[in-house]
C-alpha cells in the first residue's frame, strides 16, 4: 500500500514536463489576420500548377527580376514558387482556405476552374485592378469573359492551349499513312496499322480521366455535353450524337484493342495526382504511337524520350470529317487568393507576369498560346511541324459546359462523373443504364452541386 502516497508534486511535475517538451520547439502558430497590408511584403507565394520545369524556373526568375526593377518598393520582396499537381489543386485550395495556413498569395488556375473557385470565395475580386490595366484591351475578349462573374473580374487569362493528337512523322511514313486521319474510322484504322507495323506498342491512348480531351469526341459528333438555358443545365449524354461518341471511344479499348487496360482509370499523365508514368511516358519512350494531349505536355515527357525530332500533331478528328472536331479551349489564369494580405503587390507581380511580351515568351517556352489576340492571329505557329496541328485545332474551340460553376465538382472535384462512366463502360458495364445514370447525375450536379 506504499504507492498510495505518491504525492501530487510528482504527478504535476510529470505532466508539466510532458507539456513543456511538447511545446518547446517547432514554430508555427503565427496569427493569420484577414486584414490586408499596404506595406511591402516580405514574401509572396505563387502557386504554379503541374510539375517544376527548369525552363519555367528560369523564366520566372527573369520575371521576378523585372518585378523588382519596375516596382522598386518591392525590391526586398522574395517570391516563392510552389508546385501543385493539377489533380489535387482543388483539394489544396480547399485546405489552404479552410485552415488559413500555407495559402498562396497568387495562384494559377485552369481557366475552367476560375468560375467555380470565384464562386467558392477562393479568389479576390480584382475588377478595379483589371479595369485600369493597360493590357486589358489586348486580351482575347472571350477568355476574359470566362473570368468574369456577376460583373466582377476574378482572374486574368495567362495562356491558352488546345489538345491535339501527337504522333511521329517517321512512324506514319513507315506504316504507310500518308496524311493524318480526318475521321474516326480513319483514326481507328491508322492506329491498327501502326500497331501492326510496330508490334508491342499501343495504337492510341484511350484514357478515361481526361474529359477535356474526350469532349472533342462528343463535339466532333455534333453533340453537346450539357446545355444551359436560363441558368438551368440539361445534360445531353443520352443524345444519339453523344452516345455515338461514347461508343466509339470505349470501342478503342474494348473492340479494337488499340489501348491497353492499364490506361483505364488514369489521366493522360498516369494515376491521379501523378505527373509521369502514364500515357505520356509511354509515348515518350516509344511504347505508344498516338497520344492525345496539348503541346504543353512536352514538359512531362521523360528525359530519355526517343525520336523527339519527329514529333508532330494533328487535330482530333470529327466523326465523319473533313473538318477537325471542336476542341476545348483550355488554359491558365492568374488570380489573387482571397486571404492574401498584399493584393496590390500581388497585382503588380501579375501585371509583370502577364504583359504581352512575358506571356508570349512564357507561352512559347511551354507550347501554349498567349492570351493576346495579336499574337494568335499573327500566325508564327502555323509553320512549325509540332505546333501546326494544335494551331489548326485552336481555330475551332469551345468551352462550355466546362466552365460551369459546378463543372469541376462534377468532373474532378468530387464526382468524376464522365471518367467513372467511361471506366465502367470499358470494364464491361451495360451501355444504356450506365450512360443514363451518368447523365442524370451530371445534370443534378451541374445544377445543384450535389447528386440529389
Amino acid at each position, binding site marked *: 500500500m*506504499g*504507492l498510495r502516497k505518491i504525492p501530487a508534486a510528482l504527478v504535476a511535475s*510529470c505532466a508539466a514536463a510532458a507539456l513543456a517538451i*511538447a511545446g518547446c520547439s517547432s514554430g508555427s502558430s503565427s496569427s493569420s489576420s484577414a486584414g490586408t497590408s499596404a506595406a511591402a511584403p516580405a514574401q509572396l507565394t505563387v502557386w504554379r500548377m503541374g510539375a517544376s520545369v527548369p525552363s519555367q524556373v528560369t523564366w520566372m526568375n527573369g520575371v521576378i527580376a523585372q518585378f523588382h526593377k519596375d516596382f522598386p518598393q518591392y525590391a526586398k520582396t522574395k517570391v516563392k514558387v510552389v508546385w501543385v499537381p493539377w489533380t489535387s489543386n482543388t483539394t489544396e485550395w480547399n485546405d489552404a482556405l479552410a485552415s488559413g*495556413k500555407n495559402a498562396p498569395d497568387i495562384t494559377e488556375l485552369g481557366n475552367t476552374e476560375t468560375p467555380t473557385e470565384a464562386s467558392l470565395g477562393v479568389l479576390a475580386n480584382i475588377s478595379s485592378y483589371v479595369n485600369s490595366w493597360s493590357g486589358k484591351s489586348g486580351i482575347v475578349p472571350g477568355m476574359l469573359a470566362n473570368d468574369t462573374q456577376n460583373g466582377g473580374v476574378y482572374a486574368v487569362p495567362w495562356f491558352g492551349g488546345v489538345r491535339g493528337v501527337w504522333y511521329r512523322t517517321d512512324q506514319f511514313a513507315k506504316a504507310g499513312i500518308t496524311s493524318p486521319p480526318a475521321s474516326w474510322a480513319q483514326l481507328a484504322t491508322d492506329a491498327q496499322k501502326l500497331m501492326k507495323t510496330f508490334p508491342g506498342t499501343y495504337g492510341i491512348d484511350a484514357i478515361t480521366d481526361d474529359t477535356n480531351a474526350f469532349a472533342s469526341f462528343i463535339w466532333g459528333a455534333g453533340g453537346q455535353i450539357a446545355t444551359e438555358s436560363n441558368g438551368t443545365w440539361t445534360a445531353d449524354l443520352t443524345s444519339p450524337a453523344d452516345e455515338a461518341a461514347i461508343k466509339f471511344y470505349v470501342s478503342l479499348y474494348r473492340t479494337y484493342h488499340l489501348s491497353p487496360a492499364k490506361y483505364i482509370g488514369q489521366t493522360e499523365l498516369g*494515376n491521379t495526382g*501523378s505527373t509521369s*508514368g502514364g500515357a505520356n511516358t509511354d509515348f515518350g519512350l516509344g511504347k505508344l504511337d498516338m497520344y492525345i494531349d496539348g503541346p504543353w505536355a512536352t514538359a512531362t515527357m521523360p528525359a530519355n524520350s526517343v525520336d523527339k525530332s519527329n514529333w508532330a500533331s494533328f487535330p482530333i478528328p470529327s466523326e465523319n470529317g473533313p473538318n477537325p472536331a471542336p476542341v476545348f479551349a483550355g488554359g491558365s489564369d492568374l488570380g489573387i487568393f482571397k486571404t492574401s494580405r498584399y493584393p496590390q503587390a500581388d497585382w503588380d507581380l501579375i501585371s509583370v507576369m502577364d504583359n504581352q511580351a512575358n506571356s508570349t515568351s512564357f507561352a512559347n517556352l511551354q507550347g501554349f498560346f498567349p492570351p493576346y489576340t495579336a499574337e494568335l492571329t499573327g500566325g508564327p505557329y502555323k509553320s512549325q511541324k509540332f505546333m501546326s496541328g494544335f494551331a489548326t485545332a485552336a481555330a475551332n474551340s469551345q468551352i462550355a459546359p466546362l466552365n460551369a460553376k459546378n463543372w469541376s465538382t462534377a468532373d474532378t472535384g468530387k464526382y468524376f462523373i464522365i471518367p467513372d462512366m467511361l471506366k465502367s463502360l470499358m470494364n464491361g458495364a451495360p451501355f444504356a443504364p450506365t450512360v443514363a445514370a451518368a447523365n442524370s447525375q451530371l445534370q443534378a450536379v451541374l445544377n445543384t452541386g450535389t447528386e440529389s
Partner: protein
Amino acid sequence: MRGRLTRRTRRAGLNLLGLLVALVTLFPIFWMVSTAFKPATEWYTLNPHPLPAHPTLSNFRAVLDGSVIGLPYWNFLKNSLFVTLVSVLASSLMALLAAVAVARFRFRFRTTYLIMLLIVQMLPMQALVISLFIDFRSLNLLDSLVGLILAYTAWALPVTIWMLRNFVAAVPRELEEAAAIDGAGPVRVFWRILLPLVAPGLVATSVFAFVFAYNEFIFALSFLGADTAKFTLPIYVQYFYGRNGADWGAIMAASTLFTVPVMVFFLLVQRRLRAGLVAGAVKG
C-alpha cells in the same frame, strides 16, 4: 528404423516448409531493396531479374539530396523523429501514471474508466479526423507538428495504458509493501521497485507507441496540408510515389530508407516485444 526415417523426412519436410514461408514472406522486402539499387534500365524491363546487374546508388542519392521533391530526406526524417519521440515520451509518462492508478488502486470509476479505454480503442481514426481537423483549425494547430504530437499522444494512450496495467499488476505488492515497511517513501518505491520491474512492459509499450507514430498516415495527411517542409516520412513516401508514378527506383529507395530503421528496431527488440505484446494483448 522406419520410424526414424519418417521422423527425419518429416523434420526435413517441415524445415522446407519453414524455408518456403520465410522466402515468400521476405520476397516483397527483398524486391524493394533490390529495386532501390537498380538503375532505370533494369527495373523498367520486360524480364525482371532478382538482383541488380549494375547496382547503383543514384536512386538513394536522388532521394537524399532532394532532387526529386525539392527537400532532402533528412528534413522529413527530422520531422518524423521529432513527432515520434516527443509523443512516445509524453504518452509513456502519462500511461505509466494511469496504469499505476488502475492496477494498484480501487476507486469508484475504475471499471467505467477501463471500459472507456476499451471502447476508445475501437474508434476509427478516419472518422474522427473530421472533427479533429475542424478543432485544430480553430486552434491554429494545422500545418503544425505540435498538433500531430498531441493527436498521436492521445491515440497511443488507451492501448499503452491497457498494456501497461498488466505489467504493473504483475509486480507483486509484497515487494512494495516490504520496501515501505523498510521506510521507503512512495517516490522511492516507484523508482527502485516498480520501475525496474515494469521496464520490459515500458519497452513494449514505447515500441508500440513509436511504431504507431512513425507509421501514422491519416492524421498526418489531413493535418499537414500542402506544406511539404513539414511532412513526416509516411506522407513523404506517399507524396513521392503519387507525383513520380514511374520512378520506381527512387520510390523504392525512399521506401527503404523509411522502412529499414523500423525493421532493425523490431529485430533488436523482437524477443522482448513478443513477450510484452503477447502478455498484454492475449491476456485481454
